[in-house]
């Protein structure tokens, strides 16, 4: 029996999974289905054959290199791969199906290969099952040549997998299938990377930032992934497996205990209503929001529309998503945030040394007004549902919100001229996520209908800590007194200007932070949907009077640690009922 080994990383998405390592090496290809007009079918088969020819050349080149560098009969597997590539039956079937189904070669070829791979994968013989890897190896080369790209996909993952990779890009993370993937472990990334966000969205555990993981783990190894403690356990002992079974059971019991809160009103024990809404990333997640009893969508991130498509979606495509979301959530509000994209995601030739301080979010939108207006039109059109609000990311100067509002008003005017309907009373808000926006909030509040404090970025920018850098991620702490002072003052300023103030970072879901934020007077907390029942439970156990006292005192400390210690003590003294949901 192999020895148990524990790897430490950053806990980014809670829960525990027992599964099998699946090493993801970013080499598979996504295949899209496109109809082909009859007149072009012959061209399509020719395109297919030239991809086969090119792939054969690629394989021969690799074989030659292996023969030179390694020698022996090591390259023999490539002979088998070349036979697989040129398999006449297979090629004929693909040709025939292109004509029959009138679909693109990628799609047809992929389908035919999948059938073969499936048959082999079902074999009792391990040697044969391993050939599936060869088949995909070849097929991926062909598909890549067909598509003329080196992109990869994460769709085809065996059941009960713990996906293990150096890193997973956002558009790949978006394709993770929670039916087969039980958890995620990577070398790169941190609490707020896209992989982390996706894992939480899919409600699967994830541990990121595990150093040198890929050197120490192999495909098919049995592991336990503990997303609460941030560890990956290879070859767990039977005692370990047993104790985890108990933990899993307890978690389920707590979830069960909290589940009635989904349905309950979100108000404090002394009766103040606080909006508890959901942060979502994909349209389909509105079902999570509803399931957990969200009072609305507090943040709909639109980046994924862009990233999963690898290009700007048309106005129509965007409108369909925004409109469908607004319709499904009606009458609950939906806050749509415009693209929070880095320039490098939009213009492949664009690179910069420091993207977090660079050309991103509203800065890109303002520099590319046509691109920006397309999104504004789509959001405005969806606002006919009367429950849509719009929010702009990463405002750091007064001019930015002025210019944004000018473009927004101009877009409205153009729609009116074309007699296209939208909600005239649509609320406009900004993310307060830079220290400059927080400090300028008295002026910014005159320009908008609401503030939403993005506590993740606000923390990062205030503390000058790159949250994705594993070496310093321990410096990233929302409870840092400097961050709390900014949050407190933004809420105060907003209320002074008679606008509402929400908070949509991870702080909103932290049971220790909720009494503090309520004490500061926050009007809305927006969080990952699964955290909502717990937040409601906390909210319903606390009183405004006590929270205000706690908040006042919490502002007097010098360090994040002191703040947290104090909050735990205060909760123990005033609201012991919520201690069981604090980890």
């Amino acid at each position, binding site marked *: 029996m192999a020895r148990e080994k524990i790897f430490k990383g950053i806990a980014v998405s809670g829960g525990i999974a027992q599964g099998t390592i699946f090493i993801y090496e970013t080499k598979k290809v996504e295949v899209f289905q496109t109809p082909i007009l009859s007149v072009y079918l012959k061209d399509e088969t020719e395109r297919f054959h030239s991809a086969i020819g090119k792939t054969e050349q690629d394989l021969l080149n690799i074989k030659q290199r292996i023969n030179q560098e390694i020698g022996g009969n090591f390259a*023999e*597997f490539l*002979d*088998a791969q070349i*036979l*697989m590539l040129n*398999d*006449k*039956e*297979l090629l004929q079937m693909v040709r025939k199906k292109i004509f029959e189904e009138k679909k693109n070669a990628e799609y047809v070829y992929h389908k035919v290969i999948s059938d*073969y791979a499936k*048959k*082999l994968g079902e*074999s*009792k*013989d391990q*040697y*044969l099952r391993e*050939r599936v890897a*060869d*088949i995909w190896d070849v097929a991926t080369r062909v598909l890549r040549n067909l598509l003329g790209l080196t992109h990869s996909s994460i769709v085809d993952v065996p059941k009960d997998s713990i996906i293990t990779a150096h890193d997973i890009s956002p558009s790949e993370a978006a394709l993770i299938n929670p039916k087969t993937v039980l958890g995620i472990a990577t070398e790169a990334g941190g609490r707020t990377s896209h992989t982390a966000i996706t894992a939480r969205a899919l409600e699967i555990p994830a541990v990121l930032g595990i150093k040198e993981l890929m050197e120490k783990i192999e495909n098919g190894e049995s592991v336990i992934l503990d997303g609460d403690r941030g560890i990956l356990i290879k070859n767990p002992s039977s005692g370990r497996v047993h104790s985890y079974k108990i933990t899993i059971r307890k978690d389920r019991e707590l979830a069960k205990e909290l589940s009635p809160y989904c349905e309950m009103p979100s108000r404090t024990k002394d009766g103040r209503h606080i909006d508890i809404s959901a942060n979502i990333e994909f349209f389909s997640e509105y079902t999570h929001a509803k399931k957990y009893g969200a009072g609305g969508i507090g943040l709909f991130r639109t980046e994924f529309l862009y990233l999963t498509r690898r290009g700007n979606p048309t106005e129509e495509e965007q409108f369909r998503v925004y409109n469908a979301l607004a319709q499904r959530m009606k009458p609950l509000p939906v806050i749509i945030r415009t693209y929070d994209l880095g320039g490098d995601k939009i213009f492949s030739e664009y690179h910069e040394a420091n993207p977090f301080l660079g050309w991103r979010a509203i800065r890109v939108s303002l520099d590319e007004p046509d691109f920006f207006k397309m999104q504004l039109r789509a959001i405005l059109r969806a606002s006919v549902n009367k429950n849509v609000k719009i929010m702009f990311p990463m405002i750091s100067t007064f001019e930015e919100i002025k210019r944004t509002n000018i473009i927004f008003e101009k877009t409205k005017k153009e729609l009116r001229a074309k007699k296209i309907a939208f909600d005239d009373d649509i609320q406009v808000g900004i993310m307060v996520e830079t220290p400059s926006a927080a400090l300028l909030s008295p002026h910014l509040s005159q320009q908008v209908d609401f503030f939403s404090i993005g506590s993740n970025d606000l923390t990062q920018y205030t503390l000058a800590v790159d949250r994705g850098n594993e070496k310093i991620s321990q410096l990233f702490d929302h409870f840092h007194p400097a961050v709390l002072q900014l949050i407190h003052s933004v809420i105060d300023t907003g209320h002074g200007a008679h606008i509402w103030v929400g908070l949509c970072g991870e702080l909103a879901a932290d049971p220790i932070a909720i009494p503090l934020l309520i004490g500061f007077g926050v009007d809305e907390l927006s969080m990952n949907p699964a955290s909502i029942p717990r937040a409601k439970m906390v909210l319903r156990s606390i009183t405004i009077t006590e929270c205000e006292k706690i908040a006042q005192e919490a502002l007097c400390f010098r360090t994040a640690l002191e703040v947290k210690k104090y909050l735990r003590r205060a909760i123990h003294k005033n609201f012991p009922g919520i201690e069981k949901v604090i980890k």
Partner: protein
Amino acid sequence: MLKEKITIMNENGLHALPASRFVKQASKFSCNVLITKGDIEVNGKSIMGILTLACEKGSKVILACDGPDEKKAMGALRKILEGND
């Protein structure tokens, strides 16, 4: 057409490497080559077909060669299946 019942004697079964030798050899002949195992029949010149037959050592198959050079083909291919090539 020639037909023969053969027991796979190759140590690893008719897997990737013997299978590729088989396919390469079969492709040199102009006759049709068919392998049948149970009720599945595959083209002996298709590696994908042969792999999906999943022939381990000891499996019994029917090898059929049909065409002008069927006799030569049968002799050469039988050897591979029996592990004597």
